[in-house]
C-alpha cells in the first residue's frame, strides 16, 4: 500500500527535476562557454593591462623623445648624440605601434582611470609617485632645467634623468609582461624591458665618465 502509489510516481517527479536541472546546466554551460570564447577572441578590455600599458607607455616614451631631442640640441658629443638619436627614433616608432593597437582594438587613446591603474591596486602604489605620475617620469621643473642647460651640464642632467626614466620604463614593461594578454603587447614589453635595462648600463658608464 505505502509503496504502490509512490512507486510509479516518484521517478516522474525526479525526471522533471532532472530535465529542468539539465536544461539549466546546458544553458549555463553554453553561456560560460561562449563568454570564454568571446573574451579569448575579442579585443582587450578598456581597463586591462594591454590597453593601460599601450596608453601609459606612449606618454612615457613621448617624454624620452622630448628629452633626447633637447639634449641633441645642447650637446656636441658624438656618442651622446648617437645614443639620443637611437632612443628618440626607436621610442617614437614604438609609441606608434601602441597607438595603432588601440585604434585596432577600437579603444580610445585616453583611459578612464589614473595612470598605471592597470597594474592593479596592490601594485599601483609601488608603480606611481606621490603626485600620481608614472615611474621614472621627469617633472616639468627638471625638463625646464634641461631646456636651460647647455653642454656638459645638459649632458649630465640628461643622463641622470634618462637612467631614472629607463628604470621606470623597465618596471612598467615588466608589469605588462606579467599581466598583458595579447602577444603583441607582451612581445613589445619584453623588448622594451631588455633594451632599456642594457641601455641603463651604457648611460651609467657615460654619466660616470662625466664625473
Amino acid at each position, binding site marked *: 500500500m505505502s509503496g504502490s502509489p509512490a512507486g510509479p510516481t516518484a521517478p516522474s*517527479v525526479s525526471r522533471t527535476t532532472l530535465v529542468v536541472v539539465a536544461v539549466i546546466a546546458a544553458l549555463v554551460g553554453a553561456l560560460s562557454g561562449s563568454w570564454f570564447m568571446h573574451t579569448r577572441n575579442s579585443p582587450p578590455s578598456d581597463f586591462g593591462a594591454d590597453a593601460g600599458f599601450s596608453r601609459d607607455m606612449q606618454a612615457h616614451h613621448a617624454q624620452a623623445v622630448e628629452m633626447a631631442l633637447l639634449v641633441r640640441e645642447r650637446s656636441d658629443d658624438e656618442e651622446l648624440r648617437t645614443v639620443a638619436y637611437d632612443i628618440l627614433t626607436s621610442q617614437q616608432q614604438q609609441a606608434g605601434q601602441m597607438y595603432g593597437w588601440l585604434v585596432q582594438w577600437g579603444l580610445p587613446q585616453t583611459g578612464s582611470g589614473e595612470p598605471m591603474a592597470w597594474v592593479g591596486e596592490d601594485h599601483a602604489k609601488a608603480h606611481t609617485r606621490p603626485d600620481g605620475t608614472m615611474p621614472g617620469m621627469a617633472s616639468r621643473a627638471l625638463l625646464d632645467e634641461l631646456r636651460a642647460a647647455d653642454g656638459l651640464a645638459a649632458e649630465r642632467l640628461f643622463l641622470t634623468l634618462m637612467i631614472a626614466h629607463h628604470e621606470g620604463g623597465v618596471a612598467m614593461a615588466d608589469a605588462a609582461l606579467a599581466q598583458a594578454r595579447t602577444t603583441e603587447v607582451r612581445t613589445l614589453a619584453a623588448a622594451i624591458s631588455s633594451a632599456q635595462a642594457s641601455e641603463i648600463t651604457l648611460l651609467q658608464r657615460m654619466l660616470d665618465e662625466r664625473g
Partner: protein
Amino acid sequence: MSASSKGKGGARAGRAKVDELRQAQQAKERRSRLILIGAVTTVVALIAGVVGFTVWRDVSTRPSLDAVKKFDVTREHTTEPATYEQSPPVGGDHHPAWLNCGVYPQPVPDELAVHSLEHGAVWVTYRPDLPADQVTALEDAIPDTYMVLSPREGLPSPVVASAWGTQIELTGADDPRLEVFIKEFRQGPNTPEPGAACTGGSDGELPTTTG
C-alpha cells in the same frame, strides 16, 4: 459477515483508496512541478531584472555628448594672423609652430593652440573669473599630455572644451561631460595628424617670423 465483507468490500475499498491516492499523488506531482517551474522562472526573472536595471542605470546616468558641436574647418599653415569662425577656434588655418601642451595661467595665441588641436590635443578654456578652486579642479581632471588648459575672454559658458572640428560648452569644472569629451576626442579619430608631437613647439609666444 465480517469476514466476507472484509473480502469483497475490502477489495473495492482498496481500489478506491488506490485511485484516490494516485490522484492525490498526481496532484502533488503537478503542484511540485508548478512550484519548480515557478521558482526557476522567478530566479531567471530576478537575474534578468537585476542585470537589466544595472545596465539601464549605467546607460541613463552616463553623461551625454549630445551637446557636442561639429564643424568643418580648413588646415593650412600660415604665419599671417588668422581669424576663426568659432570662439574658441576648433580648427582652421594656423601657425607652423604648435603650442606645447600644458597648463597656461594666461590666454594663449589661437594660431598656436589650433595647431595643437590638429596634433590631437583637447583644449580646455575657462572664463577668467572662474573661481580658483575650479581652475585647480580642471588641472586635476585633465591628463598630463595632449591637453591645453588656458583662460579665455568671451566664452559662451564657464568652461569650453575643444578638439579638432568639435566643441562642447560646459557648466563648470565639475561638469561630468568634460571627462567623456576628453576620452572621446583626445587623440581621437577626428585627429588630422595622429602621432604628431605636443611638445617641442612654442611655449605660448607667437614666434616672430617674417614670411
